[in-house]
């Protein structure tokens, strides 16, 4: 079949909407009609070349939609089912899947780096040439084919047109707060970067009962959104140094936990330097894989600081999604304020521009019904 999709042809070029071929779902795969897809900074990083995935590529990895067909051997899903897509569909047999860390699935990670699916080539093509999928999903498309275990049933009570964010920003950010950092009531928290993931960390911190949530960013729109979603204070880095600013807001100690949700070496270092003695800096943002950071080595033993990574919110998406849905239904997790603008598929390239310029919170592309 044919499908219209948001494509990147080569790094540094503008994305565009074009038509590609989409094969039928193979064994263990499902065909999904996409309803809504978010645009994430990670999609932008492919455009800039900072996230070195193979091109040409169908972008997008945060989506909700409806299964339209299942491939051979699929018994866990059925046509007509509403789903949220996971960009790390677990293989179920590698060490990490077996030991309860499916977000670290090695087979999924390897497939993502190659722009393929689990055990099969990417489902998109054009004139007989492969067009890769972003992280086993490729959701900025009318239709996509994904591994069946990556299409997670959408629990009742979460509208399909709002559910897309659960697939990446919310899973990643709320998970970082509740799983990776295991925040406790009364803790003080700083979040570097108030984009989709950072705003979700802020919500997770609020849900966990953190008493002080400081949003750190340079874009006024994002700082406003952060306040709406639970930040108790904001720090504009255009006006003050973030490390000094966080120390002054926490009695000179630094926050109990810091989160870096941008993916830049300098802010990773700042998050570590700002956290209090005995505190934990959680790195959620995806920096380019060849970048390195320099930290004071004495700080580790003498200050007992912890530097911790967080991938997909340290979540098992199949188990996490129902919990997130309950948080949405109970009114604790707010999706609407995060979506400040929606776009039709034809205007999706504008969403990338708006995201790059900081003009939106989380842009969402309205693709299907």
């Amino acid at each position, binding site marked *: 079949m044919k499908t219209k999709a948001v494509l990147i042809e080569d*790094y540094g070029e503008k994305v565009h909407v074009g038509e590609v071929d989409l094969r039928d779902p193979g064994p263990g795969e499902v065909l999904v009609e996409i309803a809504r897809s978010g645009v994430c900074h990670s999609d932008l990083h492919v455009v800039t070349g900072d996230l*070195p995935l*193979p*091109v040409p590529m169908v972008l997008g990895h945060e989506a909700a939609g409806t299964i339209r067909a299942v491939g051979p051997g699929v018994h866990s899903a059925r046509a007509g089912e509403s789903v949220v897509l996971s960009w790390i569909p677990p293989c179920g047999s590698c060490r990490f899947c077996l030991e309860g860390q499916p977000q670290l699935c090695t087979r999924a990670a390897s497939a993502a*780096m*190659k722009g393929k699916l689990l055990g099969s080539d990417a489902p998109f093509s054009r004139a007989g040439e492969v067009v*890769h999928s972003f992280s086993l999903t490729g959701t900025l498309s009318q239709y996509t084919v994904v591994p069946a275990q990556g299409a997670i049933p959408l629990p009742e009570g979460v509208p399909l047109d709002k559910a897309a964010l659960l697939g990446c920003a919310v899973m990643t950010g709320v998970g970082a707060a509740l799983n990776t950092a295991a925040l406790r009531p009364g803790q003080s928290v700083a979040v570097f970067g108030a984009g989709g993931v950072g705003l979700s960390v802020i919500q997770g911190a609020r849900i966990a009962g953190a008493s002080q949530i400081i949003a750190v960013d340079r874009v006024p729109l994002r700082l406003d959104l952060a306040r709406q979603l639970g930040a108790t204070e904001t720090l504009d880095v255009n006006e003050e140094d973030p490390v000094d600013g966080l120390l002054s807001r926490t009695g000179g100690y630094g926050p109990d936990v810091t989160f870096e949700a941008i993916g830049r070496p300098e802010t990773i270092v700042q998050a570590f330097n700002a956290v209090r003695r005995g505190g934990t800096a959680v790195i959620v943002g995806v920096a380019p*894989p*060849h970048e390195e950071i320099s930290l004071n080595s004495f700080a580790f033993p003498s200050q007992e600081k912890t530097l911790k990574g967080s991938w997909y919110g340290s979540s098992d998406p199949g188990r996490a999604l129902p919990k997130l849905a309950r948080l949405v239904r109970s009114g604790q997790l707010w999706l609407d304020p995060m979506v400040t603008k929606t776009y039709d598929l034809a205007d999706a390239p504008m969403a990338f521009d708006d995201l790059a310029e900081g003009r939106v919170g989380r842009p969402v592309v309205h693709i299907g019904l």
Partner: protein
Amino acid sequence: MARFETPEELVEVLGSFFDVVTTLPQAHLIHQVGGSIEFVYHKPEARIGWLPTPEGPHPFAVVRGALPASALLTFEQDGDTAHRFWQGNLNLQDALARQLVRARGPLSRAMKLIPSLDDVYPEYRRFLEETGRRDWIS
């Protein structure tokens, strides 16, 4: 014990293998990188470069030693790491994360080649067999 005992041995083995790579269908992909690639080895110390040769008989030439000018992309690694990588026994993403491989330059352009390397890894194993190094294969 290191796989390559001397710089000369490393250059002989990997350099000769890279000569084979220049004849493979995948060799033309170097043009997607847009410039030269230099492999900087430690343990033992050696350098081998891939220099695009649009007018040459092959898509690139293998330069044993330092390239005449700065490379667009540089990969720095131990000889053992290289030996594992070309057998297909090293996940590049993991290797970068663990600093077993350090990359400088536009890494994304090199990562375009990753999907094609699945067809190149068996060629290194075949090369090792054909050059009497079957016991090197792991």
